[in-house]
């Protein structure tokens, strides 16, 4: 596991100047090992009529993409040219391999689908059984008048059918799928298709707040876009799955004048949501005491005194 972790190269898809990640393993990997949670932007196929939970792809902002590239944990792929070249110049063997992959996924989908169906059927039959039992007791109580109702479930629910239905379902999981056509699938990533050399783009040019972002990330903080709180980042002491944000961070230039009103504004905004306002800048002259690239970061925190 550690070896693969060290070697893993995250593919960051550059699409029209934006940075996306499509592979869920990559997403989890950068979340676990690089402290980057990024932002889910896609529609969830399981539940496509809501905006609360979103799905793949994940969008990285330029700082995050640059951080990963600088750490040599990722490369940036020019998605359009890669796809177009692969799609237009595809030969039989690569196509065959890709189709084989798709077919395998279709088989898997079919298996999952069949299992699900068997489960649902079993559940329904369980319900029917209970219902028929109740009906039978009712029928026995009420006598001949309720007989037709008591009969109807038995049409669908002879005990032999359950065995028949359950039998093929369990066998399909191990052997051939049932004779229905395989369902079509849309794979999430093109990894099976793009086997050739990927045209790699240069690292992104991040915003001026990159140094602050890098500093926070190196200290184990997670960040999410802080725009809703009026800052550059909201800073979490760990994975946002588990923790509330502690800070609202803004980046400044080393010699930049910070208006008192800015401090008040951001401080008020942060305090209103129980975060302290944090600001930092990178020194152009002093080197980083930790030996990293770039200059020393100085970071301050402003808290509201309740006087």
């Amino acid at each position, binding site marked *: 596991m550690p070896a693969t972790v060290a070697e893993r190269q995250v593919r960051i898809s550059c*699409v029209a100047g*934006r940075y996306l990640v499509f592979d869920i393993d990559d997403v989890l990997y950068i979340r676990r090992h690089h402290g980057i949670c990024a932002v889910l*932007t896609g*529609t969830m196929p399981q539940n496509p009529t809501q905006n609360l939970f979103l799905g793949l792809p994940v969008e990285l902002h330029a700082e995050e993409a640059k951080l990963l590239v600088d750490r040599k944990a990722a490369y940036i792929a020019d998605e359009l040219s890669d796809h177009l070249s692969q799609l237009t110049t595809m030969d039989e063997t690569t196509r065959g391999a890709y*189709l084989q992959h798709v077919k395998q996924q279709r088989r898997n989908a079919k298996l999952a*689908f069949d299992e699900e169906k068997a489960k649902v059927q079993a559940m329904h039959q369980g319900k029917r059984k209970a219902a028929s039992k109740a009906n039978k007791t009712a029928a026995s109580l009420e006598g001949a008048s309720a007989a037709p109702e008591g009969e109807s479930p038995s049409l669908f629910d002879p005990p032999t059918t359950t065995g028949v239905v359950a039998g093929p379902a369990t066998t399909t999981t191990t052997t051939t799928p049932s004779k229905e056509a395989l369902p079509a699938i849309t794979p999430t*990533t093109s990894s099976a298709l793009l086997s050739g050399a990927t045209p790699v783009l240069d690292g992104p040019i991040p915003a001026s707040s990159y140094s602050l972002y890098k500093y926070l990330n190196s200290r184990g903080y997670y960040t*999410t876009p802080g725009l809703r709180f009026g800052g550059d980042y909201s800073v979490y002491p760990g994975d946002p799955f588990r*923790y509330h944000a502690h800070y609202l961070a803004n980046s400044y230039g080393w010699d930049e004048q910070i208006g008192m009103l800015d401090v008040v504004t951001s401080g008020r905004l942060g305090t209103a949501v129980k975060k302290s306002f944090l600001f930092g800048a990178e020194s152009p002259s002093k080197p980083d005491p930790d030996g990293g690239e770039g200059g020393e970061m100085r970071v301050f925190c402003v808290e509201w005194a309740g006087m």
Partner: protein
Amino acid sequence: MPLDDDDNPALPGPQPTNKTTTTNTTTTTTTPGPSTAAAAVPDDLTAEDLIEDEGAAAQDFRLFRKTPGVSAQTIRKGEKDFESHGTRAQADALEQSRAAMGEVLAYTRVHAGPQRNLARGWVFQGWWAGFGEGEEEVGAGDGGGAGAGRERKPYGFVRERVVVLEGGSVASMNLGRAVTGQAKDRPARGKDWLLPEEALYLVERGSLDLWWPLKGLEEIFPPETAAATATAGKEGGEGAKEEDGAAEADEYELGFPLSLQAAYALLIGNDGERGKVSLQKFQVYSNLKRCGYNVLRAPPAPKQPPATPSTPITTTLWQWFANLLTSNPHHQPYGPLVQPGLHRSYASIYRQMALLPLHQPSATPSSPPPKDPFAIHYHVWKAAQKWTKLRHPPPDFQLAVVDAQESAVPTLEEATALLDATPLAPGRAEWAGHPGRMYARLKHGHRHVLVAVSFAEVYEYSWLRSKDTVKLVGAANLQLQLLGSSCVTLDTLHHTDAVDGMFQMAQAESIWDVEKTGVCSHNARRNTTIGKASGQSEVDNVGEGEPILRSPHN
């Protein structure tokens, strides 16, 4: 109306049982006690509470996994900790959350079900590249089906259409367009073609199987003349496929399925690229579609009709006032605003107080057409049963998509041009002259447009969650609510509406007593709110400096 927070179904109701936070800053963050919080703010779940929620990035996917079929409303967030305390319980909970996210997101889109319901899209990016859309079609969209006379179809954006749809009657009900007027021997005649955002949205929600063609369009969709034999053969093939899997070898003869990643690569582009949609526009589009709105691209602006004298829409009290006001432009550079003297009616006093020219909304504005990014990109309709892609009423919202990082708050010129590109939408007729409806009128304005501010990476905002409201009081009152991906009401109040309102209020309540209180103190208040906000241009005729605060008493 889902844009109002009060009505948004996603707004959590007063159920603060699992709220760990309060807006009260004295409750220290180190003690996230649910009981105290619930006691403190039982039914005061305001914007701040929502802001407190850390957003969708922190949504706990465990809840999604547990309850896959439930609506968003019932999904609540789990408890959170203040900081790491190194316990295994905490680590386990985190790991569970991550695993749940992985499991939920690892889902592969499966197109199961009866063959006839499956929608398949073929990417033909160059097919319509040379198509010239009839000029007469332009501009019909804003009239929609409401236009009298011969019915015209909305503008088709045929050149932009890159995906041809095969099957899938459900998908093509609200999306796509068939290009009519094609010769009989053209291939794929009568098929629906999708815009890139439509195709990508369908792929993403798992409703479309996007294929890359290996053969030309002529072979996949043979023209009708040759169809008799070909389709028969094809149908036979499909039938055979359903019978047994032997025909599968031919299944990929014409093309093969593409991945979601490939769909993004092929359909997302920069603004202005033919057959592409920019990522921010797509995100706004899909966000609205997920909410259930009907969204169509706005047709390009019609050519300016020859300048006609702008006729006032209705002759109301306001017009009458307008005439009075414009006829009295004379003001002394100093001295009391209302000249001392005999006033036989309020009208003469109001006339003297009129510092600003009255805005007269005109149906044919003269400002130049709007430029990107402040231009109308989408027309949005609320979900309605009778809406169809070809026949629909005028849109409920006109939407502009703006990148938050690349553009600033629109200048007055941009905002005016944007607003003038929308049709005049005055408030209801019965509101006019009704004092009780003043605020409704003020809020409604004469024209309205939605601005979707898309933050490159801040997509987790939900509709109501971010209540960052930028209010500019100005000649146009822009109320930018930075929402989800993020839709924004840009509400216009022409300043003179406010003046109207003031007059009306004064009339209705007779609070305007010249002798006792001094008109100018009222007037001053009025003008500091209005005059200051509307910038320099509007108060020019008053003179320089502080023209307003002149009271008869000093």
